[in-house]
């Protein structure tokens, strides 16, 4: 059976979700593997969300926020950036490839960029193969 990666994404309401929506309303074609969860701000993304996504079977996690300086709540995206850096260090120590977690800045008008990002990430996660975390945890249980 061919492997189709599942990528869970957290998109901030003001910029990146709108940008992703624009890709849709513009009828752009892009990989269908990205599942969208809307949050008010990328700063809302607790590391627990990312880890839980992997635990529940995500092959990749994508976080999108407003460009630096444009955050609706001023600093939320910077908090997200710092947590993302920490998460990456942690995940690599845990044997999880760095391309499985990605942070990108997408503005409300960047529909094309979002579509491109979805394709790029899907290809990268596809090349890595399925993420074994969920399987691992199920075996442990």
């Amino acid at each position, binding site marked *: 059976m061919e492997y189709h990666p599942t990528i869970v994404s957290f998109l901030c309401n003001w910029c990146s979700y709108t940008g992703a929506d624009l890709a849709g309303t513009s009828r752009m074609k892009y990989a269908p593997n990205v599942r969208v969860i809307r949050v008010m701000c990328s700063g809302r993304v607790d590391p627990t969300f990312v*880890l*839980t996504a992997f635990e529940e079977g995500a092959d990749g996690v994508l976080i999108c926020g407003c460009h630096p300086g444009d955050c609706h709540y001023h600093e939320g995206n910077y*908090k997200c*950036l710092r947590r993302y*850096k*920490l998460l990456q*260090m942690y995940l690599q120590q845990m044997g999880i490839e760095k391309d499985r977690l990605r942070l990108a800045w997408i503005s409300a008008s960047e529909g094309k960029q979002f579509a491109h990002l979805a394709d790029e990430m899907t290809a990268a996660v596809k090349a890595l193969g399925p993420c074994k975390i969920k399987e*691992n945890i199920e075996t*442990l249980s």
Partner: protein
Amino acid sequence: MEANDKKAKPKIKMAVYWGAACGGCCVSVLDVHEALFDVVAAADLVFWPIALDTKYKDVEAMADGEIDLTLYNGAVRNSENEHIAHLLRKKSKILVAYGSCAHMGGIPGLANFSNREGIFERVYQTSESTVNPDRVRPQPVTKVKEGELTIPEFYNDVRTLDQVTDVDYYLPGCPPQTERLVEVFMAIVTGAELPPKGSVVGALEKTQCDECTRKKTENKKIKEFKRPIDFVDDGETCFLEQGVICMGPATRGGCGYRCIEGNAPCRGCYGPPADVPDPGARMMSAIGTMIDSNDEKEIQKIVEQIADPAGTFYRFSLPGSILRRKLL
């Protein structure tokens, strides 16, 4: 406790057992010191390998639920630890995951960065003082000329107690501070109303920071992370404000901030505060807030100053964390 109360109430039957443990939790029970006589007056210890000669056979012969309270400390590392966990669950009314190892995996949980093969290879083969040309490894069953010898199977992964059986309460700490144990013990013995099943007992609801008496300001802003060897602690300022990782914000209070009293930063043995499923995630979030930079390159540089994030944020909780172990 009144003398009359002591006479009126029958003694509870209590057991203390260790899985993959160090004995520190048993020492924490002994450290009741002179209060020992009160404990002995209220409880009949029926199984405690470190102290009593009760054997496994005797536990097997007990009726189900005959033991009122069992404190199981130590992680589940091998088949014997698991087998006895199931046995004690059957024979006990209340089963408490006692100490960090039973609660979250503890220090032995760090073995989840490796696996059986990795550990055996190091311990029995590449260890520099070990000479083992025939690559002998401990086996669950060995035939010797007199008969067969058995030892437990060493699992690939370390587990917490609740990952193998149903746990009633968690009493955290490495080991739990004795005063907290005495409080919980007295509550059980005097028949006080117990919190809902699955609760953490013997620890505060708030974090270490609430108890710790080091000087703190409202704003923690870190421009640079230091290891304890990189600087001289002033002995009074919050460790995080001095740039040293301290797990205080992600750890329950209740231990009396004993490591901080010894001038070492907290490493999180009391486990995460209420409603926090993963202490490391909480710590990453807290640190994310404290880093004083909005520049990506600078943030990267600052974050790389943290030595061993996984082993520091999950020092006691790797098996109990969301990811549970390193992918190998």
